[in-house]
């Protein structure tokens, strides 16, 4: 594939991520923090996030599985997830977390389970998307080009 074309695709793809609300300005700021001294910063942060979040999701699922659900614990987990997703800029995960916390407050097991599904789904989506994004970037780097800074044109 032509390098320029790839770069174009990357830009297009990035834009679509922002447009769909999967990512927000926080991710952009993360990208800004990446520089020569710290070339894989974004990837590192994002992978940290996924590690973290998978663990948290498991915890949540386990907590909800119990006979008597400890909503406080669930809430703490969700809160954490929310914090980390916000830091990465995974907007839709964050939004889902907000809804999840509301359910926790109501002590609604059904709602919590539904929200968990929702969060998982969003989590999966953003994971996929970001992986694709990183793959694209890697391809560009491999092709000898530089990853253009995402231009926010929306």
């Amino acid at each position: 594939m032509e390098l320029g074309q790839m770069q174009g695709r990357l830009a297009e793809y990035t834009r679509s991520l922002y447009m769909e609300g999967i990512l927000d300005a926080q991710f952009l700021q993360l990208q800004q923090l990446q520089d020569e001294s710290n070339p894989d910063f974004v990837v590192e942060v994002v992978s940290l996030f996924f590690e973290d979040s998978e663990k948290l999701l498991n915890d949540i699922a386990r907590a909800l599985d119990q006979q008597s659900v400890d909503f406080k614990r669930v809430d703490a987990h969700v809160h954490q997830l929310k914090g980390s997703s916000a830091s990465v800029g995974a907007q839709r995960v964050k939004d889902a977390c907000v809804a999840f916390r509301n359910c926790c407050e109501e002590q609604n097991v059904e709602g919590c389970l539904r929200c968990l599904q929702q969060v998982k789904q969003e989590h999966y989506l953003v994971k996929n998307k970001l992986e694709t994004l990183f793959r694209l970037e890697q391809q560009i780097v491999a092709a000898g080009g530089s990853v253009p800074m995402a231009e926010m044109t929306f």
Partner: protein
Amino acid sequence: MLLLPILLIPCWYAMVNRVEHQVKNWNSNEFHSMLMSEIENKAKFLSPINSSATNLARILGSSLNGTALSFSEIETKVAPVLFQELSTIPYLSQISYFGLDGLFFSYYTDGNQTLAMYTNSSFFSAPNGRENYIWLMQDVDIETGKLYGKAIESRPWTMANASWFQEALNNKHGSASLETGWNNAQDLLFLNSARLNRGVLSLGFPVKTLTTIFTGVDYHGGSLYLATQDGKMLVEGLPKTHTLLASNVSCTMKDGTSRASTLTIQETEYTFYCLPLDIVGVQSVYVLAVPQNRLVSLVHKNKKVALLLLLVVIATMIGSFLGFVFIIVRAARGEMHLCAALIKQMEATQQAERKSMNKSLAFASASHDVRASLAGLTGLIEICYVEVIPGSELATNLRQMDTCAKDLLDLLNSILDTSKIEVGKMLLEEDEFDLAQLLEDVVDLYHPVGMRKGVDVVLDPYDGSILKFSQVKGDRGKLKQILCNLLSNAVKFTSEGYVTVRAWVRKTSLQNTMIASKRNCLPCLFYKNSQAYNDFETMDAALKDPNVMDFVFEVDDTGKGIPKEKQKSVFENYVQVKETAIGQGGTGLGLGIVQSLVRLMHGDIGIVDKEIGEEGTCFRFDVLLTICEIVSCNNVEAEQLEMGVGTHLLGLSSQTPSPEMTIRTPSPGLCARTASSKSTIHSPSPKQKASHVVLLIQDNERRRMSRRFMENLGIKVSVVKQWQHLSSTLETITHKQNHSHHNSLVKSYFYSPSEYLSRSATSNSITVEKDVPLSTMDGSDYILSVFRRTTPRCASSFILVVIDACAGPFPELCRSVTEFRRGLNNTCCRVVWLEKPMMRIINCKGIAETMMEPNDIIISKPFHGSRLYEVVRLLPEFGGTLLGNMGKMKESLSQVGKMPRDPSSSQGPVELPDHGSSSEIPRKKILSPIENLSHFKPKSRSPLNHGHLPQEQESKELFLSGKKVLVADDQALLRKVTVSRLLRLGATVELSENGQEALELVCKGLSDQSKCGTSKILPYDYILMDCEMPILDGYKAAEQIRKIEKHYGVHIPIIALTGHTGGEETKKIIEAGMDVHLSKPLESEHLLEAIRYIDNKWSCV
């Protein structure tokens, strides 16, 4: 109205009819009978005369024997009786005796004469019988009756045959007839005759005399005819009618009653009453002609006329009444129409108002939405701007987009302001600010804009009163908005010349009384609206406050001007003066908003009339602002602040004030004139020579302003208008200086520390007495009160040369200055170069370094406001130190200009600080070194660099350089992100995974520090603390840290990071002893803000 005539007319008509009827009745019955009875009476009165002849004849007959009388007998016996009778019997005019034999004797009266007619011969005695029978006429003596005079013969009357004679003879009772008299007039006479023996005695009564008795009666319009029975007319009632009468009126005597007959003569109907009458025995007839219905017809006629008149009157009345009614009705109808129109109009107006209100509201809400999106846009543009490679086309485009978006936002804001004002929601946000600074900021902001067009924007200090009262409380933003709007208009519409901004303070008392009087006059008219009244009340209250002053501002330009008739409408919304606004754009909302804002601040705006021949417009407005209470400690603080700045910049670690640093801050209003200070002003020490300022400024207005200002301060000013004259002016000064200098003493330049202290103490004590009445101050006093005059220790004069670098070719100017310097042997001289910000002439490095002295000052901002004051303060009289030989002295002086270099500014000699940028700093605080750095470094608020993003970015990046920050967060992800953020800002970062770790690190740091003996230095400048952490959460950790650090007497700022927002969380955080709350995710902007906030907070304590 009509009823009255309808009732009245029949009433009146009936009355008149009755009158007519009565008159008719009376006329027909009473009237003629009354007349007739009167005639009867008259006739009766005459009736005794009838028998007089008979009676006389009997008396005479008895005295005479029955034989024929001879003449002598007649003469002696009869004649005297006759005479006697003539004299006694009334009306009698002729009396005579005829004998049958022809003897005859008669007396008669002819006028006043009494005559006798007789004949002495009988028919028989005369020889020739009857032929010789003649009558004689002779005068009679009235007394005796004797005849005298000559008897005149006259023709005899034959009467023997006369009927009356025969009748008298035959009739025992005598006879009466109508005969002609003897007298010359031959009047008709009634003859009453009777037989006497053989003769006849006759008495003649004149008809005329008797008929006058009848005719003398008033017949009320009727007339009387008298005639004898045989048809002789005696009295003719109406002239020339007797023939008519004769033919038409026949009197029948048979029944003796009158019978009326009518006849129309000369169009008058007469009723004739014919009755017999006996006059002296003569049977006669009288006819009474009474005009028939004469009265009646008169009444009738009058009635008609009256009726007619009445009708006319009534008709006129009705006509006028109808006319009146018509007019009234028409007027009423007109009024009704007007009323209806008014109501309609009012309804329409109300509807329009409602519509407009709704529109405004809808508009406002829509505008809000638009603004929100716009704000989003500008934010995004800003973000994008960071991304792009500086200098690329995209960057340029982005900047343009940014400008456009900001313009759009401004436009929208102005519209929003209008709607806000319309709705009445605009409120003043009162806070303290420095007015002088604000003015300077605004003017500086528009200076480059003006310079681009070749228009100079000048801030005129005027009387300096603004400096004195510069610390005021009011709505800074709105005042700035007003000034900006007026200035931008002025700059926009001025193509050549200058724009001057002036401001001064005046007392509110005048206005106060004015308003009070207004209020007295029209209390109920104006203030029906309770809200308006309340507004007024508050305003009144504001006016009563002695601290409230009236600040007057003038923006004066030399543009096209506004035609007089348009001046009023300029302040209406959406109105632009067509002729001048062409091609300039704008909504025309600006001045409307300005006016509303000015009114909101209890002021008014108007256009001041310029003198004839002067071009341009001069807007003047005034607002009420409260003057802040300035306590003397402020003064100290302010000075300390300046000192702090100086200290830091000199790189000295100690904060003790060094006496050399005596820049006077523009501390307006701090000190008032006292007697002592006044004396120093007006009677300077004789030894001291006034400083000399040489001004070479290209722009007329600025030159005039600077010169006036300095001269007001008592500074000697030489003005050079063209650069060619500079060297000659300088030469003259050199000459003078050198000449006089030989005699002057050179003294020490130093201030000792104690001297400084005492000076500052006095200045402080002076500030206490600040209640000097305003009115006693003239303009220069204001300025002088601001610029403390000190008596310099040096008697040598000081020359300050202020040169506009653009005034002429720069090398030429430099050369003349250098020559000038060389020429001065002992006089201190400093040069201030004024540079146009747009064209950096001096910046050519080579020239600058070789030709300029290191102590020269370059001012690249407009020369007014604080720059002007700083320059004035260079003069020894105003606190400046002289350029001495000592190195330290030099250093202290140069600090005036030696400020950290703006990366974008010149590399030449020292520059004056841009005081415009210091306006944002609250006054009451001492700045920490860091604050100073961050404050001076970016210079982003200077007009030139406004919106210059890369620079701002740069400043951000260096924001935390040299700082040590501890981050406590359990999540590796967040830790990583935060750390890289902080690194980017230049900080040194330490990590901890939970509260416990953080606490330990702090403890260790503190103990290490104390071991080293530098306990006051913090182990960490800031701690970023996540609140929810395992083992020890953020709250508890913070509490612990606060406890521990107490032992060391320090305070480490802690910034809390949570995923929560809201007041409750913040409260909890504050309770835990943390300083600031930031919500996740961490934003650089927020962090910067928080750090600034902490710096401010703790530097104040």
